[in-house]
């Protein structure tokens, strides 16, 4: 294997890994941007996205690898259903655990977020049991370069790698379009910038918060489903670790900044991949977090974040 092939392969690996981080990080950063709350339950919404989509596949009796027509019908259907369910779930979490605390000191909703995280984890534990869940291999897995293009090469790209990219990248750009180009997106940004003035301009602040929570939850749900389709396993505690990485990505990119979160996700994807390759897998967490600390020392607001005046 030539060194250039190794680099290309690891870049592909980093890209798929980073795409999932980016998708989760976006929800983190959106919610933070609008209510300045680190939603620790976000990772668990991601985990529930996996469980919900798993249940939907089972309910439709789809445990086999799907054919082209089934893929075209069921894959978008289940993706949309999963996103709706996790979106509403995140909405419910906000309504029950965060909204009553809107005017409380900031540490209070943070603690309730940690509490919600534990509750969701235990919900999954009771629902699906403590074991490793096998996610059915519904998405056909084949080797793109050899099976499709008949190229002999040391580089391997599977259909599942394309699935990850094919779902997450449009979601990221779609969200970017929504936030920058639409009326609702403008209202959301206005609320994030200054809720009082936004309210004075006739924007329903609570409704904007609900919209943000819904979109964040839906993105986490989509990431959960993609994670299930890609890795074929899931477990009740997986949200914690994934959430931590995504949170890191959001901070690295500049918390509250959406392109920053996506960038941070990919940067962490690549960094951890290179660390696995050139240092050692057991040091990867240490390497990633050391780089994070270094970046934050020199750019406290993250890669793309800008210093913002404190809200009151």
């Amino acid at each position: 294997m030539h060194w250039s092939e190794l680099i290309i392969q690891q870049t592909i690996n980093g890209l798929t890994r980073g795409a999932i981080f980016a998708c989760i990080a976006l929800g983190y950063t959106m919610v933070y941007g609008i209510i300045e709350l680190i939603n620790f339950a976000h990772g668990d919404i991601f985990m529930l996205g996996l469980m919900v989509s798993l249940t939907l596949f089972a309910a439709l009796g789809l445990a086999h690898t799907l054919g082209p027509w089934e893929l075209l019908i069921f894959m978008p259907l289940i993706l949309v259903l999963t996103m709706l369910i996790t979106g509403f779930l995140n909405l419910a979490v906000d309504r029950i655990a965060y909204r009553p605390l809107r005017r409380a000191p900031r540490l209070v909703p943070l603690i309730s977020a940690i509490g919600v995280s534990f509750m969701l984890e235990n919900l999954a534990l009771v629902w699906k049991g403590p074991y490793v869940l096998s996610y059915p291999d519904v998405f056909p897995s084949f080797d793109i370069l050899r099976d499709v293009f008949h190229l002999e090469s040391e580089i391997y790209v599977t259909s599942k790698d394309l699935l990850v990219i094919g779902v997450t990248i449009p979601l990221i750009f779609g969200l970017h379009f929504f936030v920058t180009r639409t009326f609702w997106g403008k209202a959301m940004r206005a609320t994030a910038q200054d809720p009082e003035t936004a309210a004075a301009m006739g924007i329903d602040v609570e409704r904007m918060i609900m919209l943000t929570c819904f979109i964040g939850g839906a993105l986490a749900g989509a990431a959960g489903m993609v994670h299930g389709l890609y890795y074929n396993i899931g477990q009740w505690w997986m949200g914690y670790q994934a959430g931590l990485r995504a949170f890191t990505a959001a901070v690295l990119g500049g918390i509250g900044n959406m392109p920053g979160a996506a960038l941070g996700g990919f940067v962490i994807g690549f960094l951890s991949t290179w660390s696995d390759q050139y240092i050692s897998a057991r040091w990867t967490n240490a390497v990633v977090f050391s780089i994070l600390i270094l970046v934050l020392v020199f750019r406290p607001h993250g890669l793309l974040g800008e210093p913002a005046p404190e809200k009151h």
Partner: protein
Amino acid sequence: MKRSNALAGMVLVLSLGGISAAVDAAECPKGKIKIYTSWPLQGAMLPEGTGMKNGVELALIQNNNQAAGYCLEMVNLDDASPQTGKWDGAVEAENANKAVADPDAMVYIGTYNSGAAKVSMAITQRANMAQVTPANTYPGLTKKQGAAPGEPEIYRPRGIVSFFRIPPADDIQGTVGANWAKKLGHHKVYILNDQELYGKGIADVFETEAKRLGLEVLGNEGIDYKQPDQKPVLTKIRATGADLIYMGAVVETGAQVVIRQMKDLGMLAPKVSFMGPDGLFEQELLKAATCDAAMGVDMRITFASKPFEKMTGKGAEIYKLYKERYKIEPTSYALYSWEAGQVVVDAIKRADAKDREKIRAAIAATKDFDGLNGKWSFDANGDTTMDVMSGFKVVKADTPVGCKYEFDAVLK
């Protein structure tokens, strides 16, 4: 004192129950010895727990419930908590304390879970009582290899060996695995481990043995299984040209994804194969997408015993007896439990005394015991010298998953 108790009891029973008690008393000229057992006997563990109980019972029945003139009585305790159905340290401690407080109790057979043994083995040792396990395979209970710092001394408050292990400890699988790898013609191995006690312990032993055998060990790397993506590590391994990945792990710690991603990266047999210890020996692992991948990487597993049908000699005889009496296949540890019971009976015969210390010493001195898989002895740590294992490989099968583990070879 004890004599008069027994007499008093005899008179009482005679007056109540008539002639059968008299026969008992006549057969037990020296009195009664109680053997306590402790493992989960409820919930999901009920089949295995019952199988283990049957195993000990079978050994006692074969000896007419007698040894050296003492009548033997088995007392079965359950160390699971009723709330969770799983072993519980508090319950296990209570069981061990109950056993050591009973003057007739001479030996404690148990436990099923190594974690439970960590609790009870110090309690039994303080009371000089031997503990024999038919199921605990965690190395640290008896030896330093594959153990956490301070083990096994922390379990030996009196500094003696009073805990004896019938099945081979987990680390032996590393040794056996390395030998098998060489036999299968592998030259360059890359070892992965899940950074947990079981997996890392076995991986380290595999590394040592592989090097001793002249295999090239390209790495022994701990992976972060909580982050399921292992493609970068596997890409690195592919670039090293390794022809075998050995992974010290259990089903819960990421082997499924490693096997699947090996296939995704084109790392298939005969170029690259996969091997692991019996922590991966679960049907669960083969579910969903893993069958194709597992066959593709020629997945092999070592297992710390022989399949019952492949046993010969004593093992075959006990297997047949067990099936005749209980009308059911033995569970995984049922026949090891027979072995535990028989070891204890033998030791009582040799000790010829109702004395915990003498019986403990007699168990420690067990030599050339005629066991399930041949003759073995206890070493200085209280471990069996038996190292017969079997190797399984994944083959296509007409099961719901599409493949199964098939017995492949007897390993040493």
